[in-house]
């Protein structure tokens, strides 16, 4: 499988083998291999909306591989403000770099950029749509604790309706037929068409409104925040928010070995006391953004095969 020149836009473009290859290379990089393989290469990070952690982790990944970074964050400081189209921005920047990372508030902007660009484009988030490298690092983190996706039992908790990370990860896991449990208030359930897609791919799914009956069931619980602004009625929010807050006691009830993941940033959906438990792997997960993005950059630029 050759990634050279390939843009990474959506998890729907990925096959099982491509995901496993990215995980394999990430693992090699984490083990100390491939240092300096992007020497002399330039990455452009085009952040049309702010995202500190994603941008910093891409920049760190590029520099750790020996490459350099150009770019901007926030369109206020660019020609975009003068009215330049995305098309022209991308066409121009392609001449300055070996790969582009783009974050844009408009859905589909990264796909369009990849169709215009002459270098590979990596989507670092396009509105509510896709953020594939987050999914890669989620999958990679799981493989550090569990051997086989098809035998993994994964739960998702919180806002499953709007959560882009949940949608992408659930889709990716469905390629491995991973059984999944979706736990959310009625108002924030998984979109029906996505549930059908996951089912068609061969995953068994369960939808629940609370964690009560899941003692000993899950290997991984992936937690996301329930945003206040999704609720018209604040009383309704207050009622729901408490039920989806993870405390030490709740984790202990779920099972001794369950791993807790979260895409971060967290607000109060996981109590700080959970951090000290071995079950909490969300900071490891965040740090895995570096080797995974190193792997993706090396593969699409073509210095890693």
């Amino acid at each position, binding site marked *: 499988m050759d990634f050279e020149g390939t843009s990474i836009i*959506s998890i*729907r473009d990925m096959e099982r083998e491509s995901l496993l290859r990215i995980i394999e290379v990430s693992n090699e990089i984490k083990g100390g291999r491939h240092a300096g393989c992007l020497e002399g290469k330039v990455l452009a990070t085009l952040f049309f909306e702010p995202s500190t952690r994603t941008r910093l982790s891409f920049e760190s990944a590029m520099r750790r591989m020996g490459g350099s970074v150009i770019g901007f964050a926030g369109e206020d400081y660019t020609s975009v403000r003068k009215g330049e*189209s*995305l*098309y022209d921005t991308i066409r121009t920047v392609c001449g300055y770099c070996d790969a582009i990372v783009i974050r844009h*508030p*408009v*859905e*589909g*902007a990264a*796909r*369009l950029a990849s169709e215009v660009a002459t270098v590979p484009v990596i989507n670092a988030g*396009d*509105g*509510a*749509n*896709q953020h594939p490298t987050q999914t890669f690092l989620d999958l990679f983190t799981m493989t550090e604790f569990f051997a086989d996706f098809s035998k993994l039992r994964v739960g998702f908790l919180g806002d499953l309706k709007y959560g882009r990370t949940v949608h992408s990860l659930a889709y990716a896991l469905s390629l491995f037929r991973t059984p999944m449990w979706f736990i959310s208030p009625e108002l924030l359930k998984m979109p029906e*068409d996505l549930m059908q*897609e996951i089912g068609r791919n061969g995953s068994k799914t369960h939808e629940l409104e609370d964690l009560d009956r899941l003692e000993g069931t899950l290997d991984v619980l992936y937690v996301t925040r329930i945003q206040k602004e999704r609720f018209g009625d604040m009383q309704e929010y207050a009622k729901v928010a408490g039920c989806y807050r993870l405390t030490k006691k709740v984790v202990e009830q779920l099972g001794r070995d369950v791993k807790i993941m979260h895409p971060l940033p967290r607000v109060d959906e996981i109590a700080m006391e959970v951090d000290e438990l071995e079950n909490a792997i969300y900071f490891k997960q965040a740090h895995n953004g570096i080797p995974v993005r190193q792997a993706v950059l090396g593969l699409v630029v073509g210095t890693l095969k």
Partner: protein
Amino acid sequence: MSEKTYKVYAINDGTVIDHIPAQKALKVIDILGLENEGILTIGIGFSSHKMGKKDIIKIENKYLKKEETDRISLIAPQATINIIREGGLREKRKIEIPKEYIDIVKCLNPNCITSKAEVKTRFKIVQSSPLVLRCHYCERIVNAGDVEIQ
């Protein structure tokens, strides 16, 4: 095919679109942009063994191409296309749902790049019966019944 059949719908040259779902003929004309394309004959509410009721359109001196057929497939997937030349049936074909609709369907997501930039819309087929499409750019799903033609 007997000649008699074609006397009922007689055109010498052009396209007959048969088996259009009842009451959809005007929409088909709209989609194909045929309002000012010469002589049209429209039949609405004909009896049909297959469909109960159906509409029929005859377009004189115009031979529908595949791209146009693709446009019709969104609202009349069961329609049949008859190409008539010199008074005889020269070609009869069913409408096929393409793998992708390019520059036909409007994306209803106001935050899709196709609503913000000059770019041709592209919709891929998720399933054909009932027809469900997905925007190539923002990846939103749309059911055939909710499709808006550009």
